[in-house]
């Protein structure tokens, strides 16, 4: 245990925490959709990849920084999610899980291959000037891009929390999530709320994509990995719990970074899946999830 090693470890944990915030935002989208509609979005990683591509295109062709294109991408994703729910997914609510799975699998195949057809199979990254900037705190280094991405993710999560606790629509969505029938009885337009919810979930993952492209380059093959990652995070944190998704994101971000440091980087996902298996068996409702499945 040298001081050097401890420093490296602390540095890995910092990087893990910062990336973990963006993971958390991505998983938040999945968690919101599941929490309200009981639909598992198997196209989540594919949506993330589309968000990354849009931010990359904005940077490459319009010279707009991903941070600035983020609101536009989130708005586009909200609209797309709203329409997707209204047109395709709505009839599948309450249907057997395998039918929902097949529907979203088809959506996933379409999204990822449309990206492939448009942008090609090569990795695409953004080269920004701030890429090499960093803030130093004593011996520790905070990558500027990671730090900005993490702060933006926190800010968006905060906005979302305000939306769900302070606005009428947000409260109505929570009511519909708690008790669908009662929400209908008191006259809430549950169908519209569901579309709204899917839009919000999609906006989260779109925003997370715009942030993620500043950290790593995008390729269509990342999609499955992100879908799995989002599953791991929300199960570990607790499906349907917003704080749980963020906590899960941090946990997985750190565990990946530390596993990459202590073991081989290629072993890091084994770590995450091991964690997933443990949580599923010992506390299937997740760390912060409540009550029955």
């Amino acid at each position, binding site marked *: 245990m040298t001081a050097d090693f401890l420093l490296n470890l602390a540095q890995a944990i910092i990087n893990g925490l910062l990336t973990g915030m963006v993971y958390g935002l991505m998983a938040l989208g999945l968690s919101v959709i599941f929490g309200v509609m009981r639909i*598992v979005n198997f196209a989540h990683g594919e949506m993330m990849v589309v968000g990354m591509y849009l931010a990359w295109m904005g940077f490459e062709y319009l010279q707009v920084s991903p941070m600035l294109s983020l609101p536009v991408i989130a708005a586009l994703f909200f609209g797309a999610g709203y329409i997707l729910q209204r047109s*395709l997914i709505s*009839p599948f609510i309450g*249907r057997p*899980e*395998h*039918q929902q*799975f*097949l*529907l979203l*699998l*088809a*959506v*996933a*195949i*379409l999204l*990822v*291959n*449309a*990206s*492939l*057809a448009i942008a*090609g*199979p090569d990795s695409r990254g953004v080269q920004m000037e701030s890429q090499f900037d960093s803030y130093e705190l004593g011996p520790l280094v905070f990558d500027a891009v990671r730090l900005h991405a993490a702060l933006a993710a926190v800010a968006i999560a905060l906005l979302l929390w305000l939306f769900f606790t302070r606005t009428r629509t947000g409260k109505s969505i929570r009511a519909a999530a708690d008790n669908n029938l009662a929400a209908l009885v008191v006259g809430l337009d549950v169908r519209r709320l569901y579309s709204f919810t899917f839009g919000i979930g999609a906006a989260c993952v779109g925003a997370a994509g715009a942030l993620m492209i500043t950290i790593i380059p995008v390729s*269509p093959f990342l999609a*499955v990995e992100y879908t*799995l990652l989002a*599953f*791991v995070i929300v*199960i570990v944190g607790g499906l349907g719990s917003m704080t749980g998704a963020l906590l899960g994101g941090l946990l997985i971000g750190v565990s990946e970074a530390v596993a990459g440091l202590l073991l*081989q980087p*290629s*072993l890091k*996902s*084994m770590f995450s*899946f*091991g964690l*997933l*298996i443990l949580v*599923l*068996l010992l506390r*299937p409702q997740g760390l912060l999830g409540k009550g029955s*499945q």
Partner: protein
Amino acid sequence: MSFIRRLVGNAPPRILWSLAILLALLLVAPALLGKYWLSVLILILYFAFVGQAWNILMGFAGQLSLGHALYAGLGGYIAAGLYFHYGIGPWAGVFAAVVVAGMAGAIVGYLGFRFSLAGVYFALLTIAFSEFTRVAFDHWEWAGGSGGLFLKVEAVTDIINLRGGPVLFYYVILGLAAGAFILCRALLQSRLGQYWLAIREDAEAAQAVGVPVLRCKMIAIVISAALTALAGVWNAFYYNNLFPETAFAMGRSIEITLAPIIGGLGTLFGPIVGAVVLTGLGEAFTDLGDVLRIPGIKQIFYGLALLVIVMYRPAGVWPWLADKLGLKERQP
């Protein structure tokens, strides 16, 4: 004879005749078909077989597994590894493969069912085990690691070591598919099969009337995993290579689930019809993709086809087709 009579049950004669003609045609198919069409038929039979295996767990017992690549991968790796390292032929190696995959199924099943994980949670558990194993095999030298395991391609036909051309593999997979079909029919006719359907429809009610739910689910996953391992062994020797990235990939697991879901979950003909539909679409779109020369275009059409099928035939193609053709089995 009584076994056969029970197997036939109330099936309408029309369906029996159709099956007999289909089997006869399949037996002579290699003599009639060219290389390309034989390879397509092999693909159809493979997906029909592995779909039948998956259908036992999901279609009969109602447990959604999205990690069946685990059993196919384990089966393939064990038989191929035994042959590669020790020269033990697949007809012997297949026993080890089936036992290991069955045990893996038992472990996943016991953990999942014991802690009563159901639906999405069980599905995620199966994905996690499959992914976990994928990364483990990436780092396991005996199995070739991430660089893959390759079997030598030999020109001679050697049935003992399952080395040879497409015709050999065609008859093996035909035998497996036909065997699985008969096995599934027998299972459905048995008490166990009735228990499974009861569990699928309402596990709590089944438990209440005395169905041994945990044991029945365990039997389902072990049979399903063991059959899937057979498909994995066949696959490994047919393609002569194995990579953790593909053998245990989530994509492989999903591939296994598609034919039965598209064809009709829980039905005997569903996996077969689904395999025909999906392989047919896949081949047609490959040709189209070759013409259009846009990356991913084949998959885009494939995705659209899946979307259309799940929206308009959510219960699968076969139940609708059977109704149209008047092939519905009379209820006893």
